[in-house]
């Protein structure tokens, strides 16, 4: 007789909600008549994401101390719940932003896969052993591979999908090989058990740690594991890019933090240095390469690499303060990044062609709302005041300084200085070049109104600015969440 394990449905509920939404959307793609397919699918998935956010909030509320579930397969704690809220809200905004995406077909599948990817990420951040970690990673990655390639009529989309699949497959193979080594060294898969086994200076363990770190670095697109990022971000449908840049990064960052802190506390001297090296390379490469970009999606891709550097700086701090800083950083970063790609999507839909800096000319005056929104996002990413970007950088720098990494602070400051070059360049193109100069009148007369996208961008602006003024509540939640990790 086999004892069936008890399942904590509340802990799984955000994932289940999204999976359910995904299933309904998929059915809709088949059953519902053509004309209302998109609205049904989008509506259901939007509800799914909102529901997941609410449920994750409930989990956060009801979980003062971490609980390990299902024989160590997953953990129910606040850091996971908080990240799930961020992921689910990001997903909901992306659903709004993708409403008016021009796509010939596959609407039901698009939303179903978006929800499935969301469900995967939501699960991924609560994974508590190497097996569920790997499976969660593959779960959302496979969804993303398809999503990236979904615009099958565009060659670049398919190419980007293939590239992402190959590089992602390579990355997960490295991660898997590392996991196998760690398993070999300790005989355990669970994070806490790995830490408890603690075979000091075991070469297998160290090699495994290095490979797990590298595998996750692929997903957070930290240099030098970023080579797929620009191509994939550029080729993917813009709303998918928005989702990847915000959600994938958030989920993978939090998981990296969790793995390093819970499974490898005794090796912290080694991995803090490794992460610090990633920080330096990401900041240098991301920022310098971004300076040379003309295509806005590529520019934002490199910018996201440099942001990965800032977030890793919080991980390198290896302290509760660092964890708080990372979780705070994710809030404005997700908003800014989704928002910026949404503005790119606006322009893309107007012009029916890829958005370069030149094609942003005059946007600020033609479309004041989108202009101000993009301005806000760019300033926020550069860490200017009145946006959460400033506090994100400040908290990260504080954590790094507090841990004695003052040199990382200086590198971060230098990187920020370089980043101004391209962020302000975007603003310059929007406001200081008249659109008429370049004869890029919107294709087909006045642009279509798109209230859903407006709402999405408005929400992103609200979070970007709101996280500046109301930093304390977010930081409180982040502190509660960080407390669930064993520092």
């Amino acid at each position, binding site marked *: 007789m086999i004892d069936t394990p008890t399942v904590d449905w509340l802990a799984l509920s955000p994932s289940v909600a999204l999976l359910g939404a995904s299933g309904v959307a998929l059915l809709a793609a088949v059953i519902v008549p053509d004309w209302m397919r998109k609205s049904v699918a989008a509506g259901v998935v939007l509800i799914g994401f909102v529901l997941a956010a609410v449920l994750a909030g409930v989990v956060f509320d009801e979980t003062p101390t971490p609980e390990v579930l299902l024989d160590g397969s997953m953990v129910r704690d606040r850091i996971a719940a908080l990240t799930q809220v961020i992921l689910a809200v990001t997903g909901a905004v992306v659903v709004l932003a993708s409403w008016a995406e021009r796509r010939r077909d596959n609407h039901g599948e698009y939303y179903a896969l978006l929800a499935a990817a969301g469900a995967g990420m939501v699960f991924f951040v609560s994974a508590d052993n*190497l*097996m569920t970690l*790997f*499976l969660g990673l*593959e779960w959302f990655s*496979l969804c993303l*591979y*398809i999503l990236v*390639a979904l615009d*099958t*009529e565009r*060659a*670049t989309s*398919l*190419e*980007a*999908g*293939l*590239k992402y*699949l*190959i590089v992602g*497959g*390579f990355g997960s*193979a*490295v991660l*898997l*090989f590392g*996991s*196998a*080594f760690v*398993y*070999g060294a300790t*005989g355990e*898969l669970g994070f806490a058990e790995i830490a408890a086994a603690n075979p000091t200076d075991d070469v297998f363990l160290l090699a495994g740690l290095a490979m797990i770190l590298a595998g996750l670095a692929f997903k957070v697109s930290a240099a030098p594991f970023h080579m797929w990022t*620009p*191509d994939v971000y*550029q*080729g993917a449908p813009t709303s998918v890019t928005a989702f990847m840049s915000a959600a994938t990064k958030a989920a993978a960052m939090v998981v990296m933090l969790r793995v390093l802190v819970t499974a490898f506390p005794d090796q912290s001297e080694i991995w803090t240095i490794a992460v610090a090296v990633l920080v330096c390379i990401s900041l240098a490469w991301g920022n310098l390469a971004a300076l040379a970009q*003309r*295509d806005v999606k*590529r520019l934002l891709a490199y910018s996201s690499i440099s942001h990965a550097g800032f977030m890793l700086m919080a991980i390198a701090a290896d302290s509760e303060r660092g964890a708080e800083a990372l979780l705070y950083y994710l809030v404005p970063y997700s908003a800014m990044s989704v928002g910026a790609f949404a503005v790119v999507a606006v322009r893309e839909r107007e012009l029916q062609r890829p958005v370069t800096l030149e094609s942003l000319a005059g946007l600020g005056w033609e479309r004041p709302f989108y202009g101000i929104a993009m301005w806000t996002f760019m300033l926020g990413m550069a860490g200017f005041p009145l946006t959460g970007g400033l506090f994100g950088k400040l908290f990260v720098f504080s954590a790094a300084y507090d841990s004695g990494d003052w040199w990382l602070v200086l590198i971060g400051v230098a990187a920020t200085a370089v980043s101004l070059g391209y962020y302000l360049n975007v603003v310059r193109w929007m406001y200081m070049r008249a659109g008429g100069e370049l004869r890029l009148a919107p294709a087909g007369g006045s642009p279509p109104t798109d209230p859903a996208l407006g709402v999405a961008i408005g929400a992103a602006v609200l979070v970007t600015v709101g996280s500046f003024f109301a930093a304390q509540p977010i930081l409180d939640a982040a502190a509660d969440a960080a407390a669930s990790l064993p520092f």
Partner: protein
Amino acid sequence: MDGPDIGWYLIVAALLFGIGALGVMMRRSPLIVLLSTEIMLNAANLTLIAFARQQGDLDGQIFALAVMAVAAAEVAIGLGLIVAMARRRIVLDVDQASALRG
């Protein structure tokens, strides 16, 4: 245990992993690159199973079984992409596959 030590299996797995990695990085045909990632995953599986034997613990085997399923899924999507690209008459070359340069 009869026969070779676990270490020998690990050496084989490591060599296999390296061969696969080289294939991914050096080959241009997406089909062969996809096959190379399969080799990498299989190398990881061999490691997992070898360690499972070493530890006398079935977790490694379970992990390997899950990896097999995932690898199959990855292949399915990869092949789907390749077929879709062929139908769209896109040159199948991962290095040259690129309007995405610059």
